[in-house]
């Protein structure tokens, strides 16, 4: 075997140009696959990082009507959807891997003003004391809500960065008054995620995923809520789980618990967990399906490369008829000859595979420089590519090798 590999390198080296041209099909095919796979992997990793690796491990569960979140502003309070009480919260907190939970009120609101500046499509949230710790918010400036804010129904508000930017445009919002539905609220603080989450927007899908987040949020005490809205509005829930992998299951369980209390005649009225993992997967699938076509094209180039290898091996067998005849005469078995030629084909395509992987990595780096697409080199893909090209060599080498092994030594020696 080692002897065969040594002979193969010798043979390939003695026909450098021919060997390289033969390998070219394999090199191009493998390089294309490695470049595509690296780009897919890079994009996927970034999506995952952006969506779920943001570190807070929180899942939001909201009330849906069919495929859309239930809009209080248009629909009014739905019948059969109870307010989330302490018993329900207890059940939710008992779900495996759930660390914390907080119910909150939420409405999309256009009528938020500071002087004449309004916010377009921000969200007003009525929250209790546990909300900020559950969502891993910290008070960046000013103060949070105090016990008295809740008990005395004070009209105070906290802003996040987006809403404060939108309403105050660089001015200091602390202590200033904003109007929500014509009611004045005093801004007492600015909140911020404890881990900064700045998604990179690469595609239109990414844009839709993040656009809701970017519109800005205004927080008020949940006890103050009925001053501008109504009593007993349906709530949303946010839960914090131990790790990213728990998000999907814990979110589903929490939604199930809430749904068991819903007794609406409207069958489509249901709590659903916003599943970021699922979203990530969908985006990944989208990018994968467009790229799988490219992989097919690369695969075809590999087959063409394989046929090229077969062709050159057949030429090589004809050229080396005498050598084969002599080897058989001095005692080589069919299997020896078969092994020699198969090894040669496999070594040839493996070398092509290795060169392809190297060029693919270079290509991927170039793509990432030019298009600012993220690239991640996959080691399994690189190893797999080399093994696959070796397999191509063996598959397309079988026929020529078998032909060599079956040569009649007398005929082979007679040929001068």
């Amino acid at each position, binding site marked *: 075997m080692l002897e065969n590999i040594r002979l193969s390198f010798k043979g390939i080296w003695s026909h450098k140009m021919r060997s390289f041209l033969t390998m070219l099909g394999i090199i191009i095919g493998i390089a294309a696959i490695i470049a595509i796979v690296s780009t897919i992997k890079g994009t996927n990793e970034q999506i995952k990082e952006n969506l779920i690796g943001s570190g807070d491990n929180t899942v939001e569960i909201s009330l849906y009507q069919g495929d859309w979140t239930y809009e209080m502003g248009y629909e009014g309070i739905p019948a059969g959807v109870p307010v989330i009480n302490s018993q329900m919260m207890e059940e939710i907190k008992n779900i495996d891997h759930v660390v914390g939970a907080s119910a909150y009120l939420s409405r999309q609101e256009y009528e938020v003003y500071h002087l004449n500046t309004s916010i377009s499509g921000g969200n007003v949230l009525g929250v209790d004391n546990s909300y900020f710790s559950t969502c891993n918010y910290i008070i960046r400036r000013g103060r949070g809500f105090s016990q008295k804010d809740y008990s005395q129904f004070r009209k105070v508000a906290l802003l996040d960065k987006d809403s404060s930017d939108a309403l105050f445009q660089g001015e200091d919002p602390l202590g200033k008054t904003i109007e929500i539905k014509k009611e004045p609220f005093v801004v007492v603080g600015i909140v911020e995620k404890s881990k900064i989450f700045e998604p990179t927007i690469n595609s239109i899908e990414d844009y839709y995923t993040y656009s809701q987040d970017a519109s800005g949020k205004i927080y008020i005490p949940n006890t103050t809520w009925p001053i501008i809205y109504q009593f007993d509005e349906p709530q949303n829930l946010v839960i914090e789980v131990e790790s990213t992998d728990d998000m999907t299951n814990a979110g589903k369980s929490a939604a199930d618990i809430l749904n068991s209390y819903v007794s609406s005649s409207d069958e489509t009225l249901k709590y659903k967990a916003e599943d970021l993992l699922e979203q990530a997967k969908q985006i990944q699938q989208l990018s994968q399906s467009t790229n799988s076509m490219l992989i097919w094209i690369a695969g075809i180039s590999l087959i063409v490369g394989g046929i090229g290898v077969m062709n050159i091996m057949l030429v090589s067998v004809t050229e080396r008829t005498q*050598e084969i005849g*002599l080897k*058989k*005469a*001095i*005692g*080589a078995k069919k299997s020896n000859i078969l092994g020699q030629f198969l090894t040669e084909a496999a070594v040839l395509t493996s070398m092509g595979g290795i060169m392809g992987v190297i060029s693919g990595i270079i290509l991927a780096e170039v793509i990432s420089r030019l298009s600012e697409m993220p690239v991640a080199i996959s080691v399994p893909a690189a190893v797999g590519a080399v093994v696959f090209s070796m397999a191509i060599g063996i598959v397309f080498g079988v026929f020529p090798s078998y032909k060599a092994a079956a040569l009649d030594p007398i005929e082979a020696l007679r040929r001068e």
Partner: protein
Amino acid sequence: MILDLQHIFKDYNQDKLVVPVLKDVNLQVEEGEYVAIMGPSGSGKTTLMNIIGCLDRPTSGAFELAGTDILTLKDKELSNVRLNSIGFVFQSFHLMPKETALENVSLPLSYAGVKKKERKERALKALTRVGLEDRATFMPTQLSGGQKQRVAIARAMVNNPKILLADEPTGALDSKSGAQIMELFQKLNDEGVTIVMITHDSNIASHAKKVYNIIDGEISQAVKKEETHEEEN
């Protein structure tokens, strides 16, 4: 008896025409003998040697090599007989052009599964036996015709075969190199190697202890020159 051929016939089929090439060949060779088979071109010498060398099968007849009935053996077993019991030397050397003398000589050992270190030792010993130990790392293109043939002989001898078969071993050589090869054959035969040599040159044939003539596929033992001389005297 190392070779025993009985009533060997070999026909070739050429366009529905049966061409008989060997006609009732009987040949016995004892261990340690040095035999030459002489005949004009086209008389069937190479055909006969291919049969003795287990490369070809006769149309009919019986053939035993060192007591083994060769004609019942399968392909793989024939390969083993060629590997272990037969050494081939050809008119045109048939060395691997891209391998050194040493690598050429060790080729049969690799088919015999000999380990690398031992291969090298034994190949070097075989090269020493033909007087080319100082050319071990030479490529065939760097060797003279006579030297190439000696490398080929070393390759044939490296597995210690029972019999050395040579088809026109001096056919491509000048008379001086040819004489050197004949000296080497004599030396090997003195060391106990059985040799069957094919030639159309009566001078070369005269080096053998026993000479057969093959004419038109029929074999007969020739009367040796020395013996004729003795009779004349």
